[in-house]
């Protein structure tokens, strides 16, 4: 029965969030809490020759200044620092030695009785460096591009497939060709909540850690390995996350420093990073791509070349799936793809909403628009000519793909048919109007996960799994799934997450949480239901005594016969039969690999955008956008819509505003504040419309969901770039499209 799944319900944690009851990592208190403040390197590369801490230490109330010179012993092997999202390489170790590898690297932690004192003391630390020349510019280091090392991460991010057919020959002979170079600047995640860890030092030396993370168990693993502690001595709790967008997929350095200080001082320590320090770890890497497309005169694309070069650090090989999106969307027979990285003196890049997807897809989708103009074919028509139900990167059919319906419904809602294709043909006063479109795509993955369900003696259901809710609505949809599976009202169901003591769940990313943890919640509730059914059958005179599992359903807090609803046993009666104890179940959900492996699984979108470009000023406004999404089963249209709207807003940001500006002479990101790192404000956002296209899929996972975390952003940048071209006749291939590129 489905009382809740598919309904537009408000968030179960909404009241806690708006009333301040929801607590974040830096809000948890501890007796005698001390405060750490991080000192950051002012050079980009070189060595610390001297670090003078005496003045800071002389202040009453300053407890310790930990540097590479006096730090306690830490684990020796690289392996010990590998978190669940670590790319191949040698993970960064804070305070390892006197070597500086990037600007803003943490070089000391000042711990004091108050935050203000720690911050002041940090300002008194004097550091002498011996500087070495650095390289931070991707553009001028392209000659150093190389293949990335492979490792565990390559399983989720495989390199592009080998060439197919003969690109060179077919391209040369193609009657229609386009070629372009596409690039974008680095970007930082910039969640509202700063990274913070409150490490509570318990009497026996055990640690309870409140951490900002997308995986409590990932932080736990990292701490136990790096500090050689046992799992039972480290508990990580993270019930709420004030935005993360991928930045919480790896433990950040404040966790390491806070744990080190707590163990050293045998006291509780909180370390919170500043907004400026939020620019001193992972970011979306700058990427440069080249695309060439060849098509026949009917618009059939026969030849695709797509290469990409992304930046990484000198110590880890961060990679993304970039060129592979081209053959995933377009079924050309002759395809050559290439992906390389350039190590630079920056921190290792980090997954950021739709990593690789919102890099590769905007490039190919801009190139497709260029091809539409080359051929004189409507951009939507060209996409339909090249529509495919097979993913040609893997040569497998899609488990479901309602993109055609997205195109149809999105175009109709937007009014695409009324578009005059001629650039500059539509205007309103000073404003040139442009209409553009794009396809979006993101993988629909499922991971193994565990969950626990307990029906208490009072007939309340408690379900737990160690996942995270980064604001997406995980609490809400899991409560819906649990309530529907056992036929209970949502008020009687409490879903909890974000505690490393809970059953195993993967890091919360990749748009896989609804599918992964949702499946685990469904399985555990079903298996709890079987236990309750058996108990119900044991009740003397039970109307279900002879029933089989398949004969019953869970409705309205009862187990009842499908054929005879009057034959029912309440869940309360069933749990009462358990000898005064709650009924408990822990289960594992595994992806149905045998069923899934023959299919490619992905969410799709069709995005239509209107821009207004002031012809005199070059200012661009996105006045209207429609996203039609094929994302499988929609568990909660309200939280789902919020997810897509959030992605669309970020898509506008990526297309028009956002960039981390590096001064290559000093190797530092210069706009490291929200005043200078531009993101949209309310005045930048106009009419956003979301359509969920019906899509049935029983291969992707038992719930039929595909995840919505990333699909909302993927199609936006190219739709905007294409609309800007339609408005102005200027093809901008370099994001963000700022007004200086228009004038």
């Amino acid at each position, binding site marked *: 029965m489905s009382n809740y799944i598919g309904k537009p319900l408000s968030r179960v944690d909404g009241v806690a969030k708006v009333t301040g009851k929801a607590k974040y990592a830096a809000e948890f208190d501890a007796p005698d809490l001390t405060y750490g403040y991080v000192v950051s390197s002012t050079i980009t590369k070189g060595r610390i020759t001297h670090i003078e801490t005496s003045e800071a230490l002389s202040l009453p109330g300053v407890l310790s200044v930990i540097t590479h010179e006096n730090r306690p012993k830490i684990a020796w092997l690289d392996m010990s620092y590998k978190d669940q999202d670590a790319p191949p390489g040698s993970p960064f170790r804070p305070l390892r030695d006197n070597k500086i590898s990037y600007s803003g690297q943490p070089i000391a932690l000042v711990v004091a009785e108050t935050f203000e004192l720690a911050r002041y003391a940090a300002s008194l630390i004097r550091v002498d460096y011996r500087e070495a020349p650095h390289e931070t510019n991707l553009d001028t280091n392209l000659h150093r591009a190389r293949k990335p090392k492979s490792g565990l991460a390559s399983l989720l991010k495989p390199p592009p497939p080998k060439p197919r057919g003969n690109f060179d020959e077919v391209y040369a002979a193609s009657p229609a060709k386009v070629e372009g170079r596409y690039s974008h600047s680095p970007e930082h995640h910039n969640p509202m909540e700063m990274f913070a860890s409150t490490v509570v030092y318990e009497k026996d030396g055990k640690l309870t850690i409140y951490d900002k993370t997308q995986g409590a168990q990932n932080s736990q693993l990292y701490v136990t390995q790096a500090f050689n502690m046992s799992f039972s001595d480290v508990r990580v709790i993270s019930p709420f996350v004030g935005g993360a967008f991928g930045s919480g997929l790896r433990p950040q350095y404040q966790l390491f420093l806070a744990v080190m200080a707590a163990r050293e001082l045998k006291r509780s320590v909180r370390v919170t990073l500043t907004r400026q320090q939020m620019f001193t770890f992972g970011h979306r890497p700058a990427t440069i791509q080249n695309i060439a497309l060849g098509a026949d005169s009917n618009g059939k694309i026969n030849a695709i070349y797509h290469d990409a070069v992304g930046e990484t650090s000198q110590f880890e090989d961060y990679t993304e799936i970039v060129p592979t999106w081209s053959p995933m969307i377009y079924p050309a027979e002759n395809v050559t793809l290439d992906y390389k990285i350039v190590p630079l003196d920056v921190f290792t890049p980090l997954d950021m909403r739709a990593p690789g997807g919102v890099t590769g897809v905007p490039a190919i989708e801009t190139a497709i628009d260029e091809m539409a103009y080359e051929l004189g074919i409507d951009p939507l028509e060209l996409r339909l000519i090249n529509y495919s139900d097979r993913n040609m990167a893997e040569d497998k059919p899609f488990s479901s793909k309602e993109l055609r319906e997205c195109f149809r419904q999105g175009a109709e809602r937007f009014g695409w048919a009324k578009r005059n294709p001629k650039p500059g043909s539509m205007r309103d006063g000073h404003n040139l109007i442009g209409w553009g479109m794009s396809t979006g795509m993101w993988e629909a993955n499922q991971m193994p996960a565990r969950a626990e369900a307990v029906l208490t003696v009072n007939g309340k259901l408690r379900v737990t799994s160690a996942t995270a809710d980064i604001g997406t609505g995980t609490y809400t949809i899991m409560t819906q799934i649990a309530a529907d599976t056992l036929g209970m009202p949502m008020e009687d169901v409490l879903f909890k997450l974000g505690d490393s003591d809970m059953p195993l769940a993967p890091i919360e990313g990749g748009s896989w949480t609804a599918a992964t943890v949702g499946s685990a919640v469904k399985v555990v509730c079903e298996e709890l239901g079987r236990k309750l059914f058996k108990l119900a059958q044991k009740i003397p005179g039970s109307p279900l005594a002879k029933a089989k599992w398949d004969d019953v359903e869970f409705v309205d807090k009862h187990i009842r016969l499908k054929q005879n609803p009057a034959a029912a046993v309440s869940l309360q009666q069933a749990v009462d039969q358990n000898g005064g104890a709650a009924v408990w179940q822990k289960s594992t959900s595994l992806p149905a690999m045998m069923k899934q492996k023959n299919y490619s699984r992905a969410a799709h979108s069709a995005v239509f955008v209107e821009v207004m470009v002031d012809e*005199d*000023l070059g200012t661009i406004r996105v006045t209207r956008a429609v996203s039609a999404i094929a994302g499988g089963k929609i568990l909660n249209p309200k939280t789902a819509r919020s997810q897509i709207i959030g992605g669309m807003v970020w898509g506008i940001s990526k297309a028009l505003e956002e960039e981390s500006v590096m001064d290559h002479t000093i190797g530092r990101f210069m706009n490291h504040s929200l005043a*200078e790192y531009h993101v949209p404000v309310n005045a930048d956002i106009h009419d956003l419309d979301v359509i969920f296209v019906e899509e049935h899929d029983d291969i992707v996972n038992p719930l039929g969901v595909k995840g919505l975390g990333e699909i909302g952003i993927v199609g936006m940048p190219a739709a905007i770039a294409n609309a800007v071209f339609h408005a102005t006749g200027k093809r901008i291939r370099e994001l963000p499209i700022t007004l200086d590129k228009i004038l």
Partner: protein
Amino acid sequence: MIPQKVDYKRAGSVAEALSLLSANPDAKILAGGHSLIPAMKLRLNSPSLLIDIARISELRFIHEQDGGVKIGAASTHHDIVSNATIRELYPAMAEAGELIGDTQVRNVGTIGGSIAHADPSADWPAVLLALGATINVEGPAGAHDIPASEFFTGFFSTALEEGEIVTAITLPAPSAAHQSAYKKFMQPASRFAIVGCAVAIVADGGTITDAKVAFTGVSDAAFLDEAVAAALIGQPAIPETIEAAANAAAEGDIHINEDHFASQAYRKHLAKVYAKRALVEACGL
């Protein structure tokens, strides 16, 4: 964001304000406070005493005078934009006033405060220059008048002498074929002008016989752009004239501001665009 300790006195009359000012050379006049108080919070300004003149009733008036209008210095932006005579005679005043800050700012901020503060991005200075206003001033040596064209002398600087306050602004009687307009490219949060352009023209039988074009936000202080005016006077009020005149804007020997909102080149470009837009409106094209 906390100002240094400051005393506050509310003056009941201009005479009282002047005597307080002469007794406290370190004092600042408070006339709404929407620029001064933020500056004090940032400790860019730390007077020992604030003399509040915003509630002096003799300073808050708008009345017609010799076919023109005299505006008391303590008139709020809202007082001005809601005055029917001003709206009729000087459309540029209404357009500029409506674009100042938000409702709260317009309800409390005053024209006297704005021009005495002389923020290089404030709206009123450009409009007063274009309309040929006179600034009425009182000080220890008595009352006198300063033409707007001599009042705005530089970056947050005016022709006010030590101990003087602005008491009123006099707008001259517009001639029959007078038209004015104000257009600005504004900072979206503060709504200050990144570039603002005020124009006042007299077009007699299709020929422009007089023109004043003033900019704010472009340079250290609001200024009259004589080159644009020269390119208009004597010419027919047609798009080609406007195009040519607007292209002359912000050229020559003037310092152009630059900040993270707009580079010098983009500001110069904006000056031409907004001169054109204001002139198109004033000429009714």
